[in-house]
């Protein structure tokens, strides 16, 4: 029967201690939505191909629609909701706003989180680096040109805040 194997996991969620009682087959997105009301990570293609479900586990982006919740036991999990500081947007989020790097917005949290990953690795990315790094995130509204602008604006803003 489907509900037989349940377990309790403990992890850090956006900087706070969290725990959840999960079934072993449940994905990270399901658990974040059901138990924590976090809908920034969202399932769309259901195959880890579109990036809408992106979450960051121990500093690395994962596809939350495929990643089993059981795997985050003991891990550090960050979602898009963890970026803003008491309502003040993270510079990357602010850049997506000022460059309007979205239309319907469904894929946007995934792009924001992947941009954060990208800029950690390449603080001053070239166009090619941006395109390759974000090629695993899809946007059906195709706001790609503005997303690229947002990434560059975010890089600039983060660089100036480091100076």
């Amino acid at each position, binding site marked *: *029967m*489907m*509900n037989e194997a349940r377990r309790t996991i403990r992890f850090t969620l956006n900087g706070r201690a969290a725990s959840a009682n999960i*079934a072993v*087959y449940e994905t990270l997105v399901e658990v974040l*939505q*059901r138990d924590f009301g*976090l*809908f*920034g*990570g*969202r399932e*769309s*293609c*259901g*195959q880890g*191909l*579109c990036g*809408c479900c992106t979450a960051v586990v121990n500093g690395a982006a994962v596809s939350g629609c495929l990643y089993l919740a059981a795997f985050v036991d003991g891990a550090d999990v960050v*979602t*898009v*909701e963890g*970026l*803003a500081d008491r309502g003040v*947007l993270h510079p990357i*989020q602010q850049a*997506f*706003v*000022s460059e*309007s790097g*979205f*239309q*319907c*917005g*469904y*894929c*946007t*949290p995934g792009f*924001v989180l992947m941009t954060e990953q990208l800029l950690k690795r390449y603080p001053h990315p070239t166009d090619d680096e*941006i*395109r*390759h790094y*974000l*090629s695993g*995130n*899809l*946007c*059906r*509204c*195709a*706001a*790609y*040109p*503005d*997303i*690229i602008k947002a990434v560059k604006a975010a890089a600039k803003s983060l660089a100036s805040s480091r100076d």
Partner: protein
Amino acid sequence: MPARFTEPADTTVEAPSKARRKAPALREVGRSIPRLESHAKVDGSAEYIYHLRLPGMLQGKICRSTVPHARIVRIDASAALAMEGVHAVITADDIRTLIPDPYYGPAFHDQPILAIDKVRYVGEPVAIVLAADLHVAEEAADRVVVEYEPLLPVFDEVAATKPGAPIVHDFLRPSGMFPDLKHLKDRSGTNVALDARVLHGNVEKGFAEADLIFENVFRSGKVMHATFEPIVSLAELNGSNGLTIHTSSQSPSYVRAEVSRLLGWPENRVRVRTAFLGGGFGAKLYIKLEALVAACALLVRKPVRIGLTMEEQFYTITKHGATVRIKTGVAKDGRMVAREVETWWNGGAYADIGPRVSQKSGFTAAGPYDIENVSLANYAVYTNDPPAGALRGFGISQVVWAYECQNDIIARSLGIDPLEFRRRNILRNGRPHATGTIMTNAEIDEVLNRLSDRMKWDAPIDRGAGPIRRGRGVAIGFKACIAPTTSVAVMNVYGDGSCCLSCSTVDMGQGSDTAMAQIAAETMGISTESVRVVHPDTDVTPYDMATLGSRSTYHMGNAVRLAAEDARAQLLRIAAAALETDTEELECREGAVISPSGSRMTIGELMHARFGMQAGNVIGMGTFTPPYVKPDLQTGQSPQITPFWMLAGAAAEIEVDTETGRIRVTKLVNVGDVGRAINPAIAKRQLNGAGTMQLGFTLFEEMRFNEGQVINASLADYKIPGILDLPEDLSAELVEFPHEHGPFGAKGVGETGMFSVSPAIANALCDAVGVRILELPLTPERVLRAIRASENRPLDNE
């Protein structure tokens, strides 16, 4: 009795407002304001119905047909019902206890809520399992056993019109909603749901007089919307006799009307609300899951949610595949003298809005050209494919694909530059279109000029070397915005002077909340950011036909302008009384009413003056229905077929790898005639977004079928454009000549960027390597086969 300040709203105002005639400088309209909801979209908090959870709700999982055409012998749900956690399994028999005639659809009442007696496509809903746990519902849906007695299917839209073809529906059931379709009632023994014609001049005579005649058959395959927020609906009981439906719909007003009709209820017992949509593109129009979820909630007396997966979306609604036969007679000087177009639209198993797609796009199938003799025939055809409906442009890109490829063929064989060929033939303002409607407010010449400038058309291009060949192509297209339709808006001023705009336009990413707020703000003399836009909720927001066909900016924009003008007029009267002056002397700006002497009252102060405290409402209302004359059934003639024409052009530069057949689009320019851009940045983003979507439909997107089964029903196998597919040089340009009846001159733009992309690329392909491909998409294999065939060394067949 309180004093009435309400001015009757003019219901069909066409003339521009007084304010516009004075042409004051615009403060809010024309600004590239970031979307009002930006913050919520980047922090994950934007509301989408897919994420709504209702207390105590059940999840529904649909059990779908595995065969394309069959009689249902029996449905055995016992194994599913035996599963722990399954609340119910519902079939058509259950639905009929609630709704005796459970067939729905905007054009035809042909689609059963769940299959009755027969299934007509692979993926058709046959039963639904309800369980609190979605995983349980999924597993149980697999355990529902359905026994079928197969019937012969038909998939090809042309074959389906031939004598002896399997018949998908025994007789036609037009819904009555569209007067243009009423004559089809009870027609039987045919798969042609609608044949719509346009006759202009004498096409036979035209061909007889032509120096040259060209005839080709073009095809477009089926593609699909792939909205990232999958289609979803929830229903819950509302009091003792009402129902609330939360749904990712582009047409909440229609959902209310159709669900009420099915239930035999007055509309006021059904409440339909939406939130932001994670993409629409036409997938979320009319009824998708709403009738089913409503029936389920009423049968089990509990809230029910049905949310599709991406895979299920491939079995819900598609774009029409189409076969277009186009024959054109030309004089030696390059003037087109006769054009005959016959289009077969593959509508799939249920009509959805297909017959309207066929008719409304079909009547533009000769292109934006001044041709004396035109004959157009359009067949909306039932087949055993999944239903086809609207996809960003209705059927426009399918007919543009045909006429713009053929125009290139003609221009090349006459040795006329493709741009010049179009210039010689375009339909200019003041000239009659094939339907008899006079072309107005359409800037085709300017679209061509901009394309020419952007492409540096007069300068030669680098043709490439070795296996990489380069070429460039151009195409133009147009659409008549659909009619007749109505939009209603309400501008509500609160006691403190803040304003809420209520309208049922759905923001699905096109930025309508922001654009409508800009129009309201401009009219009221307040800031856009201070306007709150209420999302569609039929208990609160007034009627709107639907968010489709690039109609919102023009129709709802006008309704919003009228509503804001109405509210402004009431505020001016309050101010005139308070300031002891004449309304004519007063001006609304910066959130206040200002007199020539400089005395000013904020809107909040005016409300206080009127109600004696921070209280009350001033409610402005606007209704907009542009005129329309139904075309003659035999000839398709109408003096007023559309409220406005949408003009577009695209040009592409490409590289072709002649060893692999792969096309790389290096430059793509999309030019749209938008009247006036309410928000230029959003309008350009729409053009680029549409252009990129059509780039996918041009180069690789195609639903592939095997006996009715979609064999690539996932984003793993059905690839959509990603960031690496973006042309290096992608740009959009707005042509702005204010439309005389548009709100501040605006007209629609959401679909414009789709029209011309495919033929521009195919024409560039021909320019690069001299091969002409008549069928979309232009996959590497298709291109390579064409190149090899042209070199007399064809590739072996598969």
